[in-house]
């Protein structure tokens, strides 16, 4: 008997011309998975198929060997989902909202009452439970979103860009929350920010143009990355030329020259000092651009 195995096989989703998800195969077991990719990589589309919101163009998704679309609500019973962009019932209070979702998730009213208390506490929303949802700030709304996702103790928790729009302290809180939730379930968490998943995700999946381009632990990804980080001192007027030729992870301007951190298989210049490669470097190597930093600014 298989146990807690979520498996996708040759999964594809086409939107007219775009192949949003393209022939992806992977198997999830209990643990935290970080789905890392720039905007448009296909993360949201993949998650929508995993949560049965969207039918695949081809391929299949199975839970312990059974097709999840055939399982219908028996599969949905296992799901918790925080969408990337979601709305709320404007005139419901936070508590009403959570109790309603609990009812939709087939919790009895008594279970719901208890569970709602619990998730309010978990997400730090207890004091706002009477607030009308239309008055919530972006951060609070997202917390309510996480609260609804975990109401039914989901075996599969899917979180689409859960940290978008959160300030740094909220981000840290959130990472702690993920670690708390990670036990005995599959947590799939998408982001375009490396630091969101670096510390919490056991497995990292790099997604690009609808495909999984690299998967593994942070160490495995670093080891497999063909590029290494090099520290080079170059004259200021040559910085632009280096940008053209290499992937530059960082530029530090000093008084008489510039210090560049360059990603390359071999030393880009004599005297370049090899440095330890980070997950951020791996991201840059695959995507050709830096991940969005905590300041949300992803461009070089």
């Amino acid at each position, binding site marked *: 008997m298989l146990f807690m195995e979520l498996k996708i096989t040759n999964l594809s989703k086409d939107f007219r011309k775009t192949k949003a998800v393209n022939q992806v195969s992977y198997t999830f077991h209990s643990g935290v998975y970080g789905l890392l990719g720039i905007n448009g990589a296909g993360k949201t589309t993949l998650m*929508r198929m995993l949560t049965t*919101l969207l039918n695949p163009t081809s391929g299949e998704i199975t839970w312990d060997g059974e097709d999840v679309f055939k399982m219908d609500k028996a599969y949905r019973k296992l799901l918790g*989902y925080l969408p990337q962009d979601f709305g709320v*019932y404007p*005139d419901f209070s936070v508590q009403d909202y959570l109790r309603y979702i609990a*009812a*939709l*998730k*087939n919790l009895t009213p008594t279970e719901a009452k208890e569970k709602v208390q619990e998730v309010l506490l978990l997400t730090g929303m207890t004091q706002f439970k009477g607030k009308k949802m239309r008055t919530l700030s972006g951060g609070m709304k997202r917390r309510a*979103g996480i609260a609804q996702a975990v109401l039914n103790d989901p075996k599969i928790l899917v979180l689409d860009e859960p940290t978008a729009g959160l300030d740094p302290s909220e981000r840290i809180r959130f990472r702690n929350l993920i670690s708390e939730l990670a036990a005995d379930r599959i947590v799939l968490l998408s982001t375009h920010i490396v630091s969101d998943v670096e510390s919490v995700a056991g497995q990292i999946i790099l997604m690009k143009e609808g495909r999984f381009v690299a998967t593994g632990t942070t160490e495995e990804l670093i080891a497999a990355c063909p590029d290494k980080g090099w520290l080079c001192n170059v004259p200021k007027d040559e910085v632009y030329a280096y940008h053209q030729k290499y992937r530059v992870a960082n530029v530090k301007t000093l008084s008489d020259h510039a210090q560049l951190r360059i990603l390359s298989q071999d030393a880009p210049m004599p005297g370049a000092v090899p440095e330890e490669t980070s997950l951020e470097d791996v991201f840059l190597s695959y995507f050709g651009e830096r991940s969005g930093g905590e300041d949300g600014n992803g461009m070089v």
Partner: protein
Amino acid sequence: MTLMGYELKKMVSKRTNQIVLFLLVLLVAYTSSKTLKQVEWIDEAGNPITGRAAAVKLRQDMEPWTGTLDQPMLESALVRLKEIYGTPQPDLRPGENNWLLRHNLQGIKHVADLIGLAYGDEYEDETYAEMIESLQSEDLLRFYENKIAGHMAFLYKEGNWGYYSYTEEEKQYIMEQYRSLETPIEVGYQEGWVQASEQIPSLMKYCVILLSFLLAGIFADEFSWKTDSVYYNTYHGRTKSTVIKLLLGFITITLVYWLCMGCFSLVVLGNLGTDGAELMLQSCPRYWSVRYDMTFLQYYGLILGAGYIGFLFMGFLVMWVSAKTKSSVLAVLIPSVMLLLPMFLREIFNPFLRKVIGLLPHWLMDIEQAIRYQYLYKVFGQVTCLVPIVLVMYSSLSILFALLCYWEYRHKQIA
């Protein structure tokens, strides 16, 4: 709270829906009071009164002209009419339309009009006095014969609707209907039923337009609020909750319809009276050419029943379109378009198209016109008017759209 409770909360906590509910109350109040004002009674001084008081006076005046419209009643009516029209008219106040005549006529008006219809070739007010003057009591023996002959003449007179629209077989069928109507008819006061059935179609039409706002939101709001992605990945999202939404729609249609129509009927019939419930439609001059033996009570029941089917049909159609398009915008336009459409189709005289037009849903909210509609249909070798056809057709379509709506919503793709 149950899922139904939360769905209801979503519906009634929405501001636009609160406005719609308020407008519904206003609409019923306005239509009821307008209907009461339709009944008018003029006192000896020429001052009109309306409403409940007018109904009471009118009922008193009609008392002597209540009962079987047979030879003795026709004869005494003729005597009275000759008397009224023979009285020299006083100088009338400018702008007042012959108030003394109207005052004198009000108790006997229904019989006078029936006589006019049976004996006046083209019944007009101007020639009516002359017609009464020349009419002799022995002529009255032919009252019911004349009625049938008049219907026949209408059917066969070149240039008339009937002449163009019916086949010979249909004309025969219609004449058979007229001949089989019960005679002599009973006459009497039936103002409550007449006014209520005359005004209720417009109440229904505005009501269903407002109702569509409540209904469209049930399915479309999940998308406009962007709550769909959470909603649809829950255990009940694609199954039980969809059924509950449909059920809420059904309950909303039913409650809004019966509360609005019920309040209206209660106010109108309560004030104008339920007298005349057992009278046949043809006892009222307005329904002279009706071909069915139907009492006012049956008629009003038919109006309410057909209206309810119309509401169910439009309601489920609105819900289906809102589920299909994920938006209320198009859906709320449906009743207005369907009810306005006939105005543009009035000028079409092509017999085939007329038959198609006869199957449109607006007739369900306009039974009087539907009963009068000239075109006949042949179903399973049986000639019939459009009323039973639309009743069966739109009951079935309501169920179909409810099922389609369920299917559509259950399989919605969220992308």
